[in-house]
């Protein structure tokens, strides 16, 4: 199929699926098509180029030609004066930005319902409205429904992997620091990671390869010298696959558990070996995440005061009745964002700091240590002395972990809309640990013969040691090869 035909198909799907509310703003169609038409034919089939490909960008990633709202009322009219590095990289690789996708406001949510622009919808084969997962639900639905060939999302505690699992696409969160965050609106800087959503691992890899570079603009971007130490050549086959027993929780949906077993067996049949492992800190990971992420969020979102950009509440602010920007911030932020700002402000307050923030930081370290303890590869960010101290045993560990992405398949949209916030947070229980440790993780849809009726498949997650992004994608590809 030619690039133009592909592009036209995407544009047709954008019209067809408007009701799913996947996009907040769409690029001008005529200019998309004229750009695609200008791509020289010889470039059409290059394996690692993105020429003429329509790629959607989550609306918390800055673009200078389309508004960047982060799904928030406070930025509803905001256009960034600059392109994020990842957007520039996509453009440089020849991609065409299809539009900006809907999300939970500032990335805070697990179902993409907390958007100033309305919830994202995900439908199954029977036409039921399901949760698209969050917060990159718009990007996931856009990919699932063919409105673009791939999409950028951001993953702070599972925001790429969870929507990928719920919509049946591939969602990849690379190792922290591989992909630039310059121009990505911060939710929780120490966890935020730009991720990619696509229908196949191969397609996703093409996008990732265009982004996987050092960026001097991002102070947390890994230096070329560090990058050279990452990712061992994976020649040793069969692989040792780890099964984290701590993920086999009682509330695990039976379908999900069955798919997990199926996926493991499939890997075993390919010759890989299975090994149970324990990650005891995992049970505290979710609590730690919901201390740390809101704490950073309360800090990062302090800049939205309506003074330099963004919207302001009508009438005077900063009067005795409304302290400084109270009115603007009260009107501009949605409920979930306000909830997390308050939560974060509390855990950073002098009286709570030691009991919450500091404790959560310690748990974060324990989670990382758990992972380092089970992987056969050393954590390349630690010196060899400190990895000895962390109890790492060379050679005895596993190469990757395989576990479900979420405890259940996509829930009904109507149910999650009235869900208790803490119940919604529970969806992140399997994705948060890898985020806390900064590890690469991919969610791929796995379909079983007996569950094929549900359509999208069940999201299975492959987690690897820091820098083993390539290996994680390889295993994801093998899992998907199973039908």
């Amino acid at each position, binding site marked *: 199929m030619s690039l133009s035909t592909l592009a036209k198909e995407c544009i047709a799907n954008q019209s067809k699926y408007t009701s799913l509310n996947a996009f907040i703003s769409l690029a001008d169609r005529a200019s998309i098509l004229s750009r695609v038409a200008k791509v020289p034919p010889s470039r059409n089939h290059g394996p690692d180029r993105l020429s003429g490909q329509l790629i959607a960008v989550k609306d918390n*990633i*800055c673009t*200078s030609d389309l508004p*960047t709202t*982060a799904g928030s009322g406070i*930025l509803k*009219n*905001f*256009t*960034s*004066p*600059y392109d*994020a590095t990842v957007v520039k990289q996509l453009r440089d690789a020849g991609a065409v930005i299809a539009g900006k996708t809907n999300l939970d406001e500032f990335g805070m949510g697990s179902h993409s319902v907390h958007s100033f622009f309305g919830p994202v919808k995900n439908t199954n084969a029977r036409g039921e409205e399901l949760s698209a997962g969050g917060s990159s639900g718009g990007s996931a639905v856009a990919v699932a429904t063919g409105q673009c060939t791939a999409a950028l999302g951001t993953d702070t505690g599972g925001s790429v992997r969870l929507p990928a699992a719920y919509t049946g696409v591939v969602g990849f969160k690379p190792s922290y620091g591989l992909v630039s*965050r*310059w*121009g*990505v*609106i*911060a939710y*929780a*800087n*120490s966890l935020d990671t730009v991720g990619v959503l696509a229908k196949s691992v191969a397609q996703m890899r093409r996008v990732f390869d265009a982004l996987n570079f050092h960026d001097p*603009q*991002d*102070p*947390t971007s890994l230096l070329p010298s560090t990058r050279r130490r990452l990712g061992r050549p994976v020649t040793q086959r069969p692989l040792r696959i780890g099964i984290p027993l701590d993920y086999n929780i009682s509330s695990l949906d039976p379908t999900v558990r069955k798919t997990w077993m199926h996926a493991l067996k499939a890997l075993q049949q390919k010759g890989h070996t299975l090994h149970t492992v324990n990650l005891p800190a995992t049970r505290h990971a979710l609590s730690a995440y919901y201390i740390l992420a809101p*704490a*950073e969020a*309360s*800090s990062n*979102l*302090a*800049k*939205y*005061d*309506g*003074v*330099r*950009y*963004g*919207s*302001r509440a009508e009438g005077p602010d900063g009067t005795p009745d409304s*302290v*400084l*920007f109270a009115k603007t911030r009260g009107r501009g932020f949605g409920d979930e964002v306000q909830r997390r700002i308050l939560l974060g*402000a509390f855990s*950073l*307050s*002098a009286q709570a*700091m030691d009991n919450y*923030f500091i404790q959560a930081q310690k748990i974060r370290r324990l989670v990382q240590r758990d992972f380092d303890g089970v992987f056969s590869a050393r954590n390349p960010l630690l010196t060899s002395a400190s990895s000895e101290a962390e109890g790492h045993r060379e050679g005895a560990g596993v190469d990757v972990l395989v576990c479900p992405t979420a405890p259940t398949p996509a829930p009904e949209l109507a149910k999650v809309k009235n869900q208790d916030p803490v119940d919604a947070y529970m969806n992140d229980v399997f994705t948060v640990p890898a985020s806390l440790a900064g590890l690469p993780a991919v969610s791929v849809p796995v379909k079983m013969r007996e569950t094929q009726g549900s359509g999208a498949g069940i999201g299975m997650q492959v987690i690897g040691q820091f820098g083993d992004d390539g290996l994680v994608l390889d295993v994801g590809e093998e899992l998907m090869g199973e039908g």
Partner: protein
Amino acid sequence: MLNQLSRTGHATFARRPYICQECLRRLQSRHIRSIASPAPAWIRPLSTASDDRTPPKEDAPFRKALKDAAKKKRLENRGKAQSSDNPSGSSEFKSEKWELTVGIEIHAELNTARKLFSSAATSVNDTPNTHVALFDAAFPGSQPHFQRETLIPALRAALALNCEIQHRSSFDRKHYFYQDQPAGYQITQYYEPFARDGHITLYPHDFPGGVSPEGGPVTIGIKQVQMEQDTAKTIQQPPSTHLLDFNRVSHPLIEIITLPQIHNPVVAAACVRKIQAILKAVDAVTAGMEMGGLRADVNVSVRRRDSADSSQQSHSYHGVTGLGQRTEIKNLPSIKAVEDAIIAERDRQIDLLERGGIVDGETRGFTQGSKTTRRLRGKEGEIDYRYMPDPDIAPVVVGKDLVQHLKSSMPLLSDDVIEMLVDPKRYGLTAKDAGTLVVLDDGDRLDYYLEVVEILRRIFSEDFAALSRVGKMAGNWVLMELGALFKTTQWSADRVSPSELASLIAHVLRKQITGRTAKLLLAQKFDGDARPVDQIIVDEDLLLRPLSRDEYLAMAQQLLEEKSDVVRDIVEKGKHQKVKWFVGQMMARGAEGTVEPGTAEEVLRLLLQLPPMEEQRQQMKK
């Protein structure tokens, strides 16, 4: 205002400086109006914390207003008791009973080319909002880029304050909302400052009059020095408009925190003055206090000397225990204000406690020229800054080699300079004059003095007798004579250039003009006479002409006739030593420097029919 720009001008943002044209126009019209109207525009120079906006002085009209206020106060005080430290008359008694404890926090703008977290240039008076990077304006998605060079002046400052440079330090966010704080937090060093455990010693020469109120040297501990960002500049346009200039956002600052080891307002003032001089000497800061480059907060508490275990004295600050409840006075814009505010707050706390009251831990403000502090906010209004390590900024690691290099290349510190100035073999100034020179006009006066001496040394390179006097002589002229002329106006080295003053002093040293003539000449130059000193002397025939013998005789004759009683003492009672008194009288009567004592005595002896001096001496030997 700015959000309009974000919609209209965004595409060129990265390449063009960020100027809101509307703000610019309004600012320009404000300047025009402020000339026409006497109402001063208030510009806050350097923030030390969230609010407490003390009116400061970056524009000339306001500085003039402050000066006028200070002048008025001086006049008021002239009629009153000598010490402003004594409002109730019982202060001495009170300080026997109560001990004052003060800690100081000084914020100083570092002398760097770029901002702390962006490559935008630092600037002082440039067009508003022309040096603003995306991160400075807290644009969504922008990230901090730590500018390593900003460490250099910070490290120099910390080394000059005898601090231990920390191998590893890190940056934290200090949260509070204000329109001059675009990110909603200030990046500072709360958990891991870059320098700790320093000290500063105040010698007698560091105090006014060269006398330490504690008798000898006073050493004050420096708890830590930290780096942080400055805020934007707010330009208020009453009644309700605030214009924001983001040029100053993220200008690097250092905050110097002393231990609460100061027990005297004069010591506190001397401490701030000396820190200012040190920072200037090592070229760490942009400007002194009077230019808004430095500001101080003080923590003040009092405790009874006689009871150590009162519940009121159980407070501990920076590891110093047994102190009274302290209050904080923020944003003091001058050294005088530091001293006055401490006195006012000490007296307020003592009065309160003696009346059975309790000191609240609160933040207070002080206005230059006022006699009382005022409450800004109480404990209930105290801000919880919610310090959080900045996840985007890696820890700073400073190598030993860098510290060593900076140590070895440090310029002379004021203590070294003073030592050099008082050395009789080099400059021979008094400790008091040396101390004054070092602190005056941010060190500009010292530079001026050194240049005058340098020129004089060249002039008298062959004349060893004169050479030994030039240091002291130049000191008198630069501090006393020129100092008197600059009493009511801002110092400028251009009013009388160093070479002109040196030429004037050279004429005096060679006895070519009288001291009185020289003073008049100096005033003439100061008032703008463009002719060189040499020229004026020729034009106005000021060169000293030696007296003729007849003139000596006439002068002596007249004197002897007037004081016949003294003549009688000499001639009849043989009190020959009184001849010297007549010599003195003649010298005083003649134009300054014209009467040579030797010739005068010779003439006097002749008229009194006394033996000449040589003979007399020989007679006495016999």
